[in-house]
């Protein structure tokens, strides 16, 4: 089933052969990329090797590889300081990349005329307070070269779309945060763009407003535009994004549809009723005997993060190993977890357990939520602690 999804998008290479437990090793997914030229028609954004070293020697982006399909809502997810805004600003030519290969709307990154076809809502934007909402929409459209007649026609429509029709003639200085955000979205659409780049569009907006913004995004997508969205709010992305990328400390940890990202992390949990006198060792022996599974010795310390954040899959507790058929397995007290999406693959294990006279209490297929993936991505595999916010300073501990 997971394979089927992958086959549907063969060029994307989102599915990685990453270990199910523990974070994904970055940089693997890009191997064997097909010729990029043949793809330019399909991708709204196609980035390779985007690097940014700020003047203060902050290495904010370290070789970003990312593709956004035309017509989709793409979410860029990452903790504060991951480099999301930095990436967006490079796309919008607000900052210069240290290195950037790739295209946006078929033109190389940094190509100014292309920006007429891109709408942008910056993070922490401050519109001139002396402008009214309508003037904001018109002003930025005019800067992109939209003629007066078109501006006059589009502005009321856009204000209507974002629910600001009655406020269009009031000064921005008197707007609430949520209203500014709405006007900002209207402004981003002022040029009738093919691609809309929104940096934290729901920042500072109340839950009702967020829902409305999500609906706006869906409408924008229905108009045939590509939406590139930037957020640290997971639930938001889960609800609207077709595909997401998880950015941590300047690197893309994983990307794909939420389905793909979660399905490949699916785990079957087999819970036995009671452990025998040998405890966990008995369980391991049963697996090793009948299954020829290779279990690694030693117990991994319980990860504090796992229990605290309610992550039920990334708990690094118990004994890990590999089944003869290749699946990763983990034995944790009375639970055996097998990383697979294929129910058939767990049958030999069930047989082995039953053969050793264990009573199977439950078998569950467990899929991580986006939040689980996110927490996993931001967890340092060595310490089990969440990676600190922000990029590391160059020359500091690597």
């Amino acid at each position: 089933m997971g394979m089927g999804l992958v086959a549907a998008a063969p060029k994307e290479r989102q599915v990685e052969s990453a270990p199910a437990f523990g974070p994904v090793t970055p940089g693997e997914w890009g191997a064997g990329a097909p010729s990029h030229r043949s793809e330019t028609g399909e991708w709204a954004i196609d980035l390779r090797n985007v690097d940014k070293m700020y003047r203060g020697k902050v290495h904010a982006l370290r070789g970003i590889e990312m593709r956004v399909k035309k017509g989709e809502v793409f979410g860029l997810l990452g903790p504060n300081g991951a480099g999301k805004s930095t990436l967006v600003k490079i796309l919008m030519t607000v900052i210069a990349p240290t290195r950037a290969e790739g295209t946006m709307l078929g033109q190389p990154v940094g190509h100014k005329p292309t920006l007429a076809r891109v709408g942008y809502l910056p993070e922490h934007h401050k519109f001139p307070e002396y402008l009214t909402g309508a003037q904001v929409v018109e002003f930025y459209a005019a800067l992109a070269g939209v003629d007066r007649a078109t501006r006059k026609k589009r502005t009321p429509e856009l204000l209507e779309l974002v629910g600001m029709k009655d406020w269009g003639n009031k000064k921005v200085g008197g707007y609430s945060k949520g209203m500014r955000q709405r006007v900002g979205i209207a402004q981003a659409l002022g040029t009738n763009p093919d691609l809309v780049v929104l940096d934290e569009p729901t920042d500072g907006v109340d839950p009702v407003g967020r829902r409305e913004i999500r609906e706006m995004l869906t409408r924008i997508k229905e108009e045939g535009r590509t939406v590139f969205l930037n957020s640290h709010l997971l639930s938001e992305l889960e609800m609207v994004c077709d595909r997401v990328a998880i950015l941590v400390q300047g690197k893309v940890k994983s990307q794909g549809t939420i389905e793909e990202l979660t399905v490949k992390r699916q785990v079957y949990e087999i819970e036995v009723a009671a452990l025998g006198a040998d405890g966990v060792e008995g369980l391991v022996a049963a697996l090793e005997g009948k299954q020829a599974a290779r279990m690694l010795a030693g117990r991994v310390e319980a990860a504090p993060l796992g229990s605290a954040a309610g992550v039920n899959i990334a708990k690094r507790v118990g004994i890990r190993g590999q089944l003869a058929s290749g699946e990763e397995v983990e034995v944790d007290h009375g639970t055996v977890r097998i990383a697979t999406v294929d129910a058939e693959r767990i049958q030999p294990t069930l047989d082995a357990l039953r053969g050793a006279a264990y009573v199977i209490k439950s078998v569950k297929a467990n899929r991580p939520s986006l939040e689980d993936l996110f927490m996993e991505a931001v967890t340092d595999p060595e310490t089990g602690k969440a990676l600190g916010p922000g990029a590391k300073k160059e020359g500091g501990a690597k």
Partner: protein
Amino acid sequence: MTSTWALVLDAYRDLNSKKLFWITLVISGLIVLAFAAIGVNEQGVTLLHWQISDFGGTVTSDTIPPAMLYKSIFSNFGIAFWLAWGASILALISTAGLIPSFVQGGAVELVLSKPITRVRLFLTKFACGLLFTTLQVAVFTFACFLVIGLRGKSWEPSVFLAIPLVVIFFSYLYSICALIGLVTRSTIAALLLTLLAWFGLFLVNFGDAAMIGMREAAKTNVENLEKSVARHERFATRQWEQLWLTRNTKDLPDGAPKPTPPKPPVAELDEAVPTLRDERRKLAEQQQMAQRMELFATAAVGLKTVLPKTGETIDLLSRTLRDRMNLPGDDSDTETSNESQPPDQARTVNFWNQRDPEESRKLQQRIDGEFKKRSVWWVLGTSLLFEAVILAIACIVFVRRDF
């Protein structure tokens, strides 16, 4: 074009929201009204319909015709005082914020993300600042043109020369203001540092004038002393020769040809007229002084060549207007030469403290002559070059910055 117009409109809205643009315009208007209220008739100066004073009979419509009065007020007060100082400071205050508010975080990202190159963005913003100053100057000048025409009955299109020259003058300062505003992103810093730079330019200008003045004073002294030394020498030589002749002819028989006296030895001349030695010493001193001042003046001129010439740009305007409008300048050409013996000592003039009005008038003439030698192209060209360099630096800073 759409985008340029949008930027201009935005700059207008920005200035409009700060009210200062209008305040400046209102003050300009009041000054013009006051200008129009002043008049002159047979009895003297009037304000509206009140007779004020005739300044002891020196200022009536007979001595100063109304046209002359208005023109000279415009050129002496309107330009030199209001446009070059008051209005420029107000224009700086009202436009200093344009660039800082433009590059403010949160506001600049959207503008940069538009399909306009950064150089064009920056230069357009800079031009907007100048444009609104131009409007101010134009309104004021036009109003003054009307006052001179209606009240002075003299239509003088040359007053409009004030618009380009004052704007050029302002643009030197505004380029500095724009660069500082861009680098510091602070209106206050841009304003204060620009005023400081302006003051610095004023000092350089002052230093230059002082150096030239002292050099010319020293040169005048050298010339005077040279003449005086020559005079003394002649006088001493005559004295010495008479002495020599009386000494050498008393024994000669009558009718014998008079022997020509030999060239007198310098030491004996000095002995004959003791002040000659003093004059020689003073001459040597002044020659040394002139040399030193020449060095300083050259350094000052060199420094000025690379800096904008604010003072001289305005002087250029005032001078041109005086010429065009046939106003009496401050230079009259009355050369007087009084060759008076016996040799009194040459008066050495001091640039700072000239007691002799005749000497100081001559000195002033020489100094003015020196400044007149500076061509329009030197004054405007090198200043505009300075401005171009500042703008180029600002463009580079703007293009390279990560916002």
